[in-house]
């Protein structure tokens, strides 16, 4: 969910302050700690910044979530300001005149916003469900990862606490009563819509990538490569060939030098 910390920026930013050289990007430790849904968002933001050609210093912190002004990762430190979560960060970059979707007209921008929202609501909630509600994945992957940086007994109290919060959230939007099959269906429906929209294009809105491409890459690449007990999700995604190709294309172009996971 968007944070209001970024709102402070509107008043203070001047035209010359485009992008400081010491911007820091904070996320939890990649290999041992970060959970599936959090990493989707982190990867999406990093991809977006790479696509925009904006440099940042990657900082891995065990307490990134507690440091964040909105309680969620990732967050950026730009000068004296802290900006958290995908939507707010994108809005901030756009406000600085560095938008990569400036070439879209109003209608296209509205469509892009709608698809971004769909990915946030369907794929993010599905990832939350699978990580925190699915018993297998929770006990084999999520809990050990989330608790790994804390001493006993916090290593099981904190994942339990977070699980309660996720359950409340999923209950409020009606996901808690879904079965695993339902969740897989939702993922398929979302991917179908994205695939239909992408069609045979290189990126969702033409020749140049936009924040929607970054977000879709973040989620899909993560779902394919994240260490999970089984590969059902990978199989689901690979069925949508044009989306899998999009991921490969983005990985090749923006992550040539970096090996993930």
């Amino acid at each position, binding site marked *: *969910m*968007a944070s209001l910390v970024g709102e402070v920026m509107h008043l203070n930013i001047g035209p010359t302050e485009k992008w400081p050289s010491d911007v820091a990007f904070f996320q939890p430790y990649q290999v041992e700690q970060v959970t599936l849904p959090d990493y989707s968002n982190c990867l999406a933001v990093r991809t977006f910044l790479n696509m925009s050609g904006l440099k940042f210093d990657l900082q891995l912190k065990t307490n990134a979530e507690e440091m964040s002004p909105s*309680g969620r990762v990732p967050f950026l430190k730009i000068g004296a300001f802290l900006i958290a979560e995908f939507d707010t960060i994108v809005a901030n970059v756009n406000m600085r005149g560095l938008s990569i979707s400036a070439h879209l007209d109003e209608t296209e921008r509205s469509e892009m916003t709608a698809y971004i*929202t*769909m990915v946030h609501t369907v794929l993010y909630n599905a990832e939350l469900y699978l990580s925190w509600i699915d018993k297998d994945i929770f006990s084999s992957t999520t809990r050990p990862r989330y608790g790994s940086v804390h001493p006993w007994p916090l290593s099981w109290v904190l994942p339990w606490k977070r699980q309660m919060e996720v359950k409340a959230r999923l*209950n*409020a939007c009606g996901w808690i009563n879904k079965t695993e099959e339902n969740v897989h269906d939702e993922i398929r*429906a979302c991917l*179908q819509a994205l695939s*239909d929209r992408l069609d045979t294009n290189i990126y969702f809105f033409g020749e140049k990538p936009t924040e929607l491409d970054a977000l879709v890459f973040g989620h899909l690449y993560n779902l394919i490569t994240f260490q999970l007990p089984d590969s059902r999700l990978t199989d689901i995604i690979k069925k949508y060939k044009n989306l899998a190709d999009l991921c490969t294309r983005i990985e090749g172009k923006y992550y040539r030098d970096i090996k993930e996971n």
Partner: protein
Amino acid sequence: MTDDVLNLEVWKGNWDLPSVDNECLAVWAYCKFSGLPTKVQKSHQTNVFQSSLAKHNLPVLQHGSATESQLGNILSYLKNQGLGVDKNLSSKELADISAFSALIEEKLLPAYLHHWWVDTDTYVEITRPFYAKASPFPLNYFVPGRIQRAAKQHIYAPRTNDVINDEEVEMLVYKEAKECLNHLSYRLGENDFFFGDQPSSLDALVFGYVAPLLKAPLPNSQLANHVKGCPNLSGLCNRILNKYLPMSPEDLEEKRKRELEEMEKKQVDSLEFPNKRRNMILAALFALSSMIGYAFISGLVGVVIVDEGDYDGFSGVFGDDEGGGDDD
């Protein structure tokens, strides 16, 4: 084939609308677009045994042996049965509908719910009395509260945490709603409907939200004002109302009766009005004076004249005590 008839139970209407509830309007409009044979049952015309309100929230669709409640489920059901005008759309257009439905549910619905069910003024003066009257006895005592609790959960649970409090959530939710309305307006553009000349489920969905905001007498609603500022959305709404959901003769009759009642009530009130206040004051004074009189007569209250010498006995209380503080 009576099997084909869709039985729809919806909330009753007001303010020139066949129903006041956004989900009911959306489902009803979509059935009308699709030309599906629909039999509509209004909530206030049922009793507690017939009504689905005891178990579900409206709208509720009953088709043959299947029963579905909630907008999303009903639309999926119709899609799976191959009913509904959406089947004529291309896959790309259907993808757009998925995306915009997600946008509306995520960005517009929370503010909508807050506006009707959480904002104290609107809830107390308009929403709760209306929904209570529109529910059959005895559900009218439970149902509005039940809907309000669910609305609050839906708005706040996914958004509040240690750092963000309720007021900030409210501000955020309204801001996102206005942006969403703008996006819908941009997407609609100059067209009659979102996908050309024929309406779709997306039009039905948008209509459901926009119509009550446009038609209800809301004194100071930022959402309603914003909608009024998007002329193409108002145009869409009126177009749908005129073509697909005109007021039925019974609705018109009801409306006339209600207006007549309100006028009469106003007249009666104004006749009594100058005296009403005076009567109330006189009654209060009378009650007060009789209570005081009784108190005096029965000795509960008395006026006693005390000599100053009577107060000597109190000095011991403060003088001799040591260390009065609590040392736990």
